[in-house]
């Protein structure tokens, strides 16, 4: 794939100091009514790093990522992509990143190829570039051939993740923000996605992904952050956060799962 080369040439250059983080979240906060979904989220993704965000369901991962990429207006705080503020200079910031949100709809009455062609044209990319990238993306993600004429409406969950990733990659971003990219994806497709993301990082791109599969994050990421109850409770290089134990053990320790509740449910034993 030639995407990285294109993105290096096509996207705007980072902030003048040259040291700007790929993605910087400062004090993001969101309250829904009286419920505090995200209390205080600070996160820094270094350029070229593969960053994993872990946390139990309801920890506020999706809310935080939505605020960070510009899909949900934060109550406080800001997010910067290579030094460009997402909420103040959205046009430039959003050009630099590719986003895969979790569980949002697509223009459902289009096929995968129609969708990518549409988005390429909407972004103002020239026709030949779009055609070339779409061919490559669909081939790599195995969305052409038999499923060529299938509407997205009829896609399986795994196919949806794949087309979502293709949408995120299409314009050659320098940062990928992926919310649960591996959820409901079969092992074969997951292996393919992993290879693709590793290549993206090897080519100089940065990735921030959220997941609750610890083994996957341990295997792929160099930096991790743990989120619990709306706050980032730990972040840093993988080995530092693990502190000698497995990520899962450390995670349970940080998030604090009480074992005493499991004493109930006696009626389940026959």
């Amino acid at each position, binding site marked *: 794939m030639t995407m990285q080369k294109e993105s290096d040439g096509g996207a705007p250059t980072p902030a003048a100091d040259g040291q700007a983080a790929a993605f910087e979240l400062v004090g993001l906060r969101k309250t829904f009514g009286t419920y505090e979904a995200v209390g205080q989220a600070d996160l820094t993704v270094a350029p070229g790093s593969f960053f994993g965000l872990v946390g139990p369901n309801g920890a506020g991962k999706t809310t935080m990522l939505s605020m960070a990429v510009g899909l949900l207006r934060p109550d406080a705080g800001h997010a910067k992509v290579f030094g460009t503020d997402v909420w103040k200079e959205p046009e430039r910031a959003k050009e630099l990143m590719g986003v895969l949100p979790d569980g949002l709809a697509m223009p459902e*009455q289009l096929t995968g190829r129609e969708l990518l062609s549409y988005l390429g044209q909407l972004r103002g990319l020239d026709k030949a570039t779009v*055609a070339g990238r779409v061919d490559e993306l669909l081939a790599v993600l195995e969305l052409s051939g038999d499923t*060529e004429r299938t509407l997205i*409406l009829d896609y399986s969950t795994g196919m949806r993740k794949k087309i979502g990733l293709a949408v995120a990659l299409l314009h050659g971003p320098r940062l990928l923000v992926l919310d649960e990219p591996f959820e409901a994806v079969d092992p074969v497709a997951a292996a393919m996605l992993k290879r693709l993301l590793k290549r993206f990082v090897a080519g100089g791109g940065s990735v921030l992904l959220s997941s609750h599969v610890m083994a996957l994050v341990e295997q792929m990421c160099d930096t991790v952050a743990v989120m619990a109850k709306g706050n980032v409770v730990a972040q840093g290089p993988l080995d530092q956060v693990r502190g000698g134990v497995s990520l899962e053990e450390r995670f349970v320790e940080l998030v604090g799962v009480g074992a005493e509740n499991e004493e109930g449910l006696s009626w389940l034993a026959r």
Partner: protein
Amino acid sequence: MAGALIHMKLAVMRRDISGPRSSWVFGGALVGLLLAVATIDVATLNATHDSTVRDLLAVVFAVWTLGWMLGPAYSGQPVLRGEQFQLQPIPRRRLALGLLGSAFVGVTAPVTFVAFTALVAFGIRLGAVPVVVAVPAVFLQLLFVVLLSRLTAHLFGALSRSRIGGAVSALLNAAMLVASSSCWVVFIAVHSVLTTGFSHGFSITVRSLPSSWGVLAVEAASRSDWPMTVLPLLGLALLTALLWVAWTRSLGPARWTRATVRGSGADRAAPGGRLSSGATAAVYVKEMRTWARDPQRMQSFVVAPAFAVLTCLVPLAFHSTEFLPFLGALTALMGAVTAANLYGQDGTALWLTVLMPGSERADVRGRQLAWLTVFAPMTVVLTAVGIAVGGHPELRPWALASTVALLGGGAGLLPLVAVTQLAPGPDPREIRNAPLDHSDVTGQAFVMMIMALGTAVPAMATVLAGQLLHEPALRWAGLVAGAATAVVCYALLGRAAHRALARRGPELLYLMRTGKEQRGKAGEGATFIQAMPAYRRRLFWSSFLVGCIALFPQALVPLLMKVSGKVSRVWFLALYMPNAWQWPVIALMSVIGLGSFALAARIGLSELHAQRS
């Protein structure tokens, strides 16, 4: 079972009353109650022939029944449905009984019950025995319409899974819409009807409808015609039982599969020619593909012309061809009304636009152009046909000016209403097997209809001026005025829409994701009213206003007048009623007024409480 389901339904209702739909729930209940009172009023009218009142009641009940059949197409499916309980080990009959019980909880069923008590009012006029007959008839009739509504919803839902089925259900839908709206023509001419009665054929047709059988029984009881008293009631009971069986069976696993639509092949995925470049062209192609493939869009594509043609055909029965030139104008109007939830239909796909700042303009313009491509040719052809077939050269300026004005007005309002009145619903993939499970678009449809008619006012006023001043040139200037408003609406309203989309993109996405609006932040110096979410503020003010109108001029003033004996009717509804009904209407108005104030107070207090904590 029934108890549990009724509790669930009540919980959903409580949420509705405090959610974004509250103003529509409240407004709908009020309008419904007024219609119910009007229905009871029909039963108290005096006519030259007694049978005329009976026929009038039969017409009104037919309209209520049609309303129940049409309702689900606009309000979406009922909140509690059979599919939701498929994995529970509940016998189907018990489930059906529970769901039926929950169907009576809500706004529509009690309001309809009030309307159907017109049958008792009719019985009171005729004697004691007819009253005794009327009471079971009211309950049977209510059961009948509730079951009929569920079954038609099921049928439409099944049909709407394919494009052809969508077109068929659109035709049925349009036919019912026209039948129910045409019936009101009867009430415009109610004074002449009361003296001359209905034609024999019409009377027979209306009386044969199951919705009229209750009236027939009550009337027969007054004549001591026992067979004719018992037969209609037995018929209604039998029909209701049949509907019950059919509905119980329909609760099982779905039998009808969905027709799969295929997209274009690899070589045709990217548009060619002039459409191959530019952001607006990209959106246009995407929209045209959606219009061609989505059964829901197919439905709105068919409903509009079908409604227009049927509406104009009905007056032909009375040898009136005056409506024909307006075929096209009506199509444009209905096209805008049925397509008004453009963004809501796309669900959370809006995130793509939000993540591409600057694409909002192309998104709005592309959608406007696609709507015009779909509806404008059809509208123009229908106007031409209507003018050619209908004659009436004097109506030509009216027809052409309104067609042009409504096309432009519709194209301009379409994105604006879709953005500002967005009715959030489930994402398309969640309802791909049940396209009618959409959001409640009733309120949005009304807003669109009124505003679209508003855009035709300048053109119509110009033609009218020409008519009054006998200036042919001025009459034709109406066409120019129509074209001018069309262009202005398309440009300015479209601009307002894409600006609103750009400004409120994340908020609209949030609304689509969660079905509720974000609570506004209480800024410095903002009163608690300003800090309310927009929908609560709307509800607060509308209930306050309704409270003022209902309690003071419609309840207290007529009360004082009646007490003091100095009665002057003006616009006091109660004083237009027959003497026996005046006090009940005053009481009803007081209840509505006090209820509205209580609601406003409740909203205010809960909001104050929420903002303080």
